[in-house]
């Protein structure tokens, strides 16, 4: 059995490395469509890592929402732009050094937060896992307030989209 566990571990590391390679591709490739496909690969890879961490519900939702819906919308948006036929686009501009600085600051902050958080690993918590039922109970119980706020924001966004997409009233001139 140990051999299988070790094999699975190596598989996860390989997937992680691939995710990083594709993530580099997203920001360095000079063709918008190629970048979008790399992004899709990154998202699928992340879902695989979730699966390896036994968060199978999150993995399925990641693929359903990000790869299935968001990626399609991104590709659709690219198809509507003028860059569709172009072979190359520059991915960087003069602001990139500043952006790198900001990014390093962000990584530092996140790292600090992760290191300072106590991660309580108890036997009971490991045994329960992330079942869909407990997630649902948490969303409808202790986290019902943020959940409702998110729903209100989503409805506002929906109404906004409808208002923007509506035909303009004909101007009387």
């Amino acid at each position, binding site marked *: 059995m140990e051999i299988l566990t070790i094999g699975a571990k190596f598989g996860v590391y390989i997937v992680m490395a691939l995710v990083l390679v594709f993530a580099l591709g997203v920001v360095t490739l000079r063709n918008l469509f190629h970048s979008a*496909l790399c992004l899709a690969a990154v998202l699928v890879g992340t879902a695989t890592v979730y699966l390896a961490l036994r968060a199978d519900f999150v993995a399925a939702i990641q693929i359903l929402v990000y790869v299935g819906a968001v990626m399609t919308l991104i590709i659709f948006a690219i198809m509507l732009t003028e860059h569709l036929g172009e072979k190359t686009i520059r991915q960087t501009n003069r602001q990139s050094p500043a952006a790198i600085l900001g990014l390093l600051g962000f990584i530092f902050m996140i790292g600090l937060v992760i290191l300072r958080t106590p991660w309580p690993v108890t036997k009971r918590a490991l045994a329960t896992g992330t079942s869909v039922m407990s997630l649902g109970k948490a969303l409808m119980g202790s986290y019902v307030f943020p959940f409702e706020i998110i729903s209100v924001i989503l409805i506002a966004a929906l109404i906004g989209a409808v208002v923007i997409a509506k035909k303009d009233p004909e101007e009387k001139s």
Partner: protein
Amino acid sequence: MTMPGWLRSIEFAVDLSFVNAKGWFLDLLGKFLPGWIVVLTSIVISGVVILCMGPIIMMYLTLLERKLIGRIQNRYGPNRVGIWGLLQPIADGIKMFTKEDIVPANADKLIHLLAPIVIVIPALMVFLVVPFGERMTAANLNIGILYFIAVSSITTIPIFMGSWASRNKYSLLGGMRTAAQMISYEIPMTLSVVPVIMMSQSLSTNTIVMTQCGDVDLHWFVFTPWGLTGFMIFFLCAVAECNRPPFDLPEAESELVAGFHTEYSGMKFALFYMAEYMNAFTLCGIATTLFLGGWQGPFLPSWLWFFGKTFLLICVMIWFRGTFPRFRVDQLMGFAWKFLLPLTLINILVAGLWQFVPERTAWLYSVPILIVSLWTLVKLNRHFVPEKRAYPLAD
């Protein structure tokens, strides 16, 4: 329902013959080899069975479709290769392999090559959670149905890759249409599954089948008002998801040559074709699992029931293809967003009602609610005439 004991045991043995054969083989291996090899072999056996079954089912689906369409159109269909044309798919396969592979000069070579390969992967991956019979699910995931929906939603991306990489206006138009259609129909399809999940309290395909159990008194979900509505919506969306007529706008041959696979030839084209047919099969299989009781059924072995029901649904799909004209684009979008989506939401409400009310009263409530809402939606959706376009140069 009483059955003599010996008949019962024979039925049980036939039912589980594949499962028992695999278990016996693994037991035999376990006597000589360490445990991890046995686990690995178990995975490999399931994998190989799925990898072989997908293409074989696809080959004979094409034959079935050509035969049935032929009968609908008052001709014989293929009948030259082998008896009843049974070897026709193999002849087609040899033809596909030996054909020249043409890549357009301006195409994006790598993505043009990757698209047909990538499209087969999700089509094969969804076979994992289809329960082919009692204890015959390759991987009994506890998020089974969600896994199915998630993995089958990936299919849009390879279609897009193929359409974009071909550098052809027809391909691109086909790809755009596919994206719009698949995103639109995914939503009512996912929502029509929700009542089933509510009733069976589980996402696992096995448990969903188990909750519909019953020997002769059938407890299939399709025999309830919300189940029937959900099944209709799911099946229509399934037809749209695998781009079959009357929802075949992405490859409408009268407008777009062949849509997204216009620039594909030889084996690459065959792979697109294969993915489409395997998707049709798995979608019908999942519809069977969710609403038609999966492998549940009296007398016959469970896998026979499953394949029987699934092929019945596939025959309905072929029947659609033989009889219905193609939708217009605005009708296609309107049908998903203005008709199916509100109906699924009402259906979820009805299913919720069903949960908390005793069965007799629930029938009294839910049937009128569904009929009234169906009638209202049909009334609201009627008589839409698109804007008249002026073509000054053509007149």
